[in-house]
């Protein structure tokens, strides 16, 4: 199995202490900035800034590498494939039959790759520094209905449980002589049915028990529910929020009001 059950890394940096709502807004606004910029140099600066924030969030090296693995592969793919499909512009650098590679196409591919790189890495600032519990809390504060928030919290809670259930069912079926890794892709996928049926039945049983547990704890008895831990905006959160908003608004003014080439 590849991947992490939870990307959150425990640490005490200023990004960790920031209000999760500010972090969510920051991710959205920084993504918008990436769409706003069209110049390769400015996009590279933005990418550098995002990487700096990822570094400041003190994620472990293995996690950062895991996060960057897909991103770098995607960026390489865009850089290689873009000039093959975009044949506009001069000068033509090389041509082979209908295929020709032009210089502006290479630059456009590079720009697009850096933009995708920005969009892809900005997520990790949020995921590395915010616990799942805080994420759900922030979403509820944003106006997500409490019961939907609870559903989300339940699914995050049971995700590792089901992952280990699936693993032990796979082992049990292997012990009975099933060969999951045998055959072509279609055959191999159909082998998984023997794993998935017990997994689903076990999950549905869990759901039954869980609904009883929810009822016995008087879920939904009162609409005006209270919370043990409230999240509050501190002065430093307002400062961070205004910096983030300024980093979107200033380039937007430069581009749309003064029609600068950014």
């Amino acid at each position, binding site marked *: 199995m590849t991947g992490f059950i939870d990307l959150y890394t425990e640490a005490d940096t200023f990004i960790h202490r920031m209000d999760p709502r500010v972090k969510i807004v920051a991710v959205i606004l920084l993504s918008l900035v990436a769409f706003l910029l069209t110049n390769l140099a400015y996009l590279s600066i933005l990418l550098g800034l995002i990487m700096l924030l990822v570094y400041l969030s003190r994620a472990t090296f293995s996690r950062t590498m895991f996060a960057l693995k897909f991103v770098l592969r995607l960026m390489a793919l865009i850089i290689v494939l873009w000039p093959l499909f975009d044949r506009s512009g001069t000068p033509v650098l090389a041509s082979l039959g209908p295929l020709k590679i032009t210089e502006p196409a290479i630059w456009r591919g590079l720009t697009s790759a850096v933009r995708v790189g920005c969009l892809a890495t900005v997520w990790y600032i949020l995921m590395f520094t915010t616990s799942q519990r805080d994420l759900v809390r922030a979403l509820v504060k944003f106006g997500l209905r409490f019961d939907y928030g609870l559903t989300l919290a339940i699914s995050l809670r049971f995700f590792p449980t089901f992952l280990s259930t699936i693993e032990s069912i796979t082992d049990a079926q292997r012990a009975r002589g099933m060969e999951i890794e045998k055959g072509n892709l279609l055959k191999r*996928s159909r082998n998984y049915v023997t794993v998935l*049926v017990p997994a689903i039945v076990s999950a549905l049983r869990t*759901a039954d028990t869980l609904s009883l547990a929810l009822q016995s704890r008087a879920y939904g008895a009162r609409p005006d529910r209270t919370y043990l831990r409230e999240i509050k905006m501190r002065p430093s959160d307002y400062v961070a929020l205004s910096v983030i908003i300024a980093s979107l608004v200033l380039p937007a003014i430069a581009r749309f009001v003064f029609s600068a080439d950014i």
Partner: protein
Amino acid sequence: MSSGDKTASTFRKPVKFVSPKTVALYGTLTALTAAITMATFVPFAPTKGYFNIGDSMVFFSALAFGARAGAICGGIGSAAADILLGSGYFAPYTLVAKGSEGLVSGLIAGKKMDRKWITAFGIAAGGACMVATYFFGELLILNVGLGAALLESVGNALQVVVGGTIGALLAHYVRKAYPRLTEQ
């Protein structure tokens, strides 16, 4: 539960909350979708970076529990798996793509597992929604270029064929193994 009793109604669950049964069912189905996506992960499609049979859970939820379950569990579960597998930038597209996949196949074929052709049509229509959302999302919003987007679409279409077959089989077998499923 009698409806006219006023003293009892103060302790009863207000109508505005989703029932605990639904909360528990949707929560576990979402978790299961994410877990299966992650457990059956095979690095394959170039842009997103993996092939999985998580679609089978989207189709299963839609076929067995209807459009709403398909949309919510499929969308959120797959998006969560995307984030945990390291392609978080795909999560918004996955939310829309897999959500619409579950919604459309659930609307057409939800809870009608006995009719094979309707099931097949529902899976095909839902799958088309998913492939189209990813293709246009990558081409127009992420702007990865036509080459990468086309390459990804082939992987996605293959995923629909495999996931759809397994999803339909799952809905059939699980109903046999766990007859209470039809009561929910």
